[in-house]
């Protein structure tokens, strides 16, 4: 029983990471109908920048975090303006391919800057596990990640429901044409949406740094799994991203313990196939009905 509870604790922490990243995909797809496959590598850039400022430059953590978020957002906005936007004018299919190419480009560009070795990011509150009971424990960094995830989810929810800009983003997601007739500037909404997506990925990157080896390849698998979480939950649906992220974290933690940790990465894909077979629109996704 204790092993099970331990797995659930680990799974929730892992799920929190997937949730933040799944939300960063979802906000882009939900609002602008854009699937940015480079999102995992944006996360990697956030992590490496956080590492550079916090460890290499010995800045205070909060300063390092803020700088990492700002620069990561600037990078994604530059990519959007210089590459995604012109390509989108041609076709959204081309953009889809371009984002895949961008993922590889970012990984290799980061390798030029940061080298191909991996670094270790110090834990913020020490790496000693906190004993809950004799056989149950949690490492402080996992608590940090769960708290960060909750804060981001609440902040995003309040932003979308309570602010004028959030409302405009919902309006754009439902009907971009009508939104433009209301005087919504689509380009401005695009910039805000990409900024939020980049900021979320960078925050996830900086806070998960201590859990992984910091390297240029850290975003590839994680980005793909978070995308799976978002699609499982119902792509474009924020609540779905949370459900998908948590399910994926739990399945991975439980599967690694009870089945085999060798198949850790396979569980995500098996889950995706099962869920899409049973519910093609995702767990919380709506079937798209086209009205005449």
């Amino acid at each position, binding site marked *: 029983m204790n092993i099970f509870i331990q797995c659930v604790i680990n799974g929730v922490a892992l799920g929190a990471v997937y949730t933040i990243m799944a939300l960063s995909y979802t906000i882009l797809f939900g609002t602008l109908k854009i699937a940015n496959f480079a999102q995992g590598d944006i996360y990697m850039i956030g992590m490496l920048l956080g590492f550079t400022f916090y460890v290499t430059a010995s800045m205070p953590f909060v300063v390092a975090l803020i700088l990492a978020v700002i620069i990561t957002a600037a990078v994604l906005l530059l990519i959007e303006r210089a590459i995604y936007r012109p390509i989108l004018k041609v076709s959204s299919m081309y953009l889809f391919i371009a984002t895949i190419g961008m993922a590889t480009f970012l990984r290799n560009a980061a390798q030029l800057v940061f080298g191909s070795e991996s670094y270790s990011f110090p834990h913020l509150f020490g790496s000693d596990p906190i004993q809950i009971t004799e056989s149950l424990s949690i490492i402080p960094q996992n608590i940090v990640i769960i708290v960060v995830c909750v804060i981001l989810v609440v902040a995003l929810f309040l932003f979308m429901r309570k602010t*004028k800009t959030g409302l*405009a983003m919902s309006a754009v997601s*439902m009907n971009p044409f009508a939104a433009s007739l*209301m*005087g*919504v*500037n689509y380009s401005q909404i695009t910039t805000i949406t990409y900024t939020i997506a980049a900021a979320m990925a960078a925050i996830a990157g900086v806070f998960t740094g201590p859990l992984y080896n910091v390297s240029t390849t850290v975003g590839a698998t994680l980005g793909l799994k978070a995308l799976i979480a978002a699609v499982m939950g119902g792509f474009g649906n924020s609540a779905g991203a949370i459900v998908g992220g948590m399910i994926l974290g739990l399945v991975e933690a439980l599967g690694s313990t009870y089945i085999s940790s060798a198949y850790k990465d396979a569980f995500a894909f098996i889950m995706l196939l099962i869920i899409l077979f049973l519910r093609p629109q995702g767990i919380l996704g709506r079937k798209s009905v086209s009205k005449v």
Partner: protein
Amino acid sequence: MSETILKVSGVSAHYGSINAVKDASLEVNQGEVVTVIGANGAGKSTLMKCIVGVMPKSGGTVEYMGQDITKTPSDKIVRMGIAMVPEGRQIFSELSVLENLKMGAYTRTKKEDLAADYDLVFGIFPRLKERAGQKGGSLSGGEQQMLAVSRALMSRPKLLLIDELSMGLAPVLVESLFDALMDINKKGTTIVLVEQDANMALKFSNRAYVIENGTVALSGKSSDLMADDRVRELYLGG
């Protein structure tokens, strides 16, 4: 004679290689109700989209209150006081009635009190007040049209363009919507109505333009056009 609020001169627009609007010109004076009638696909909607800046023009100019808005982006045009009720209503289906209205007031940057505007639109359409918390997509077609008109009014437009008010609605309902528009017009909003239902549109407007194959084929006082043989034959069912 009252002053011109909108002047469209020689506007053309293309969908790919299809020339949807050809050299169309029209003028609207302050306080008027002007209708644009024509068959399905004649280019009426495209012309409206050209005016509000959501459709690129391949030629011609648009002037609004003496200012050239030919190349002005749509968000600025809305700020300048032109609002459009689009064809097919285009309600934000997952937003509540109240949130739809809030979106209509999107350009109102000052922390103005919207209460007076809610009172105004709920006064015109009491049904919407009862439905204020409901999702836009759950409303009936007529209620959605009321919401679409109200939403456009929330930006406090000086010029209101309405594309196919009557489409898909019962005649009784259309009549009461037209009555509401007359009310809105009396309060000072200039209205341009695009309609396939020429009967109703001519009855309620001061002047009319007939669009055929993307260009203005005929124009004049609505009462005169109602008596015109060609208009009677083609648009009023003989």
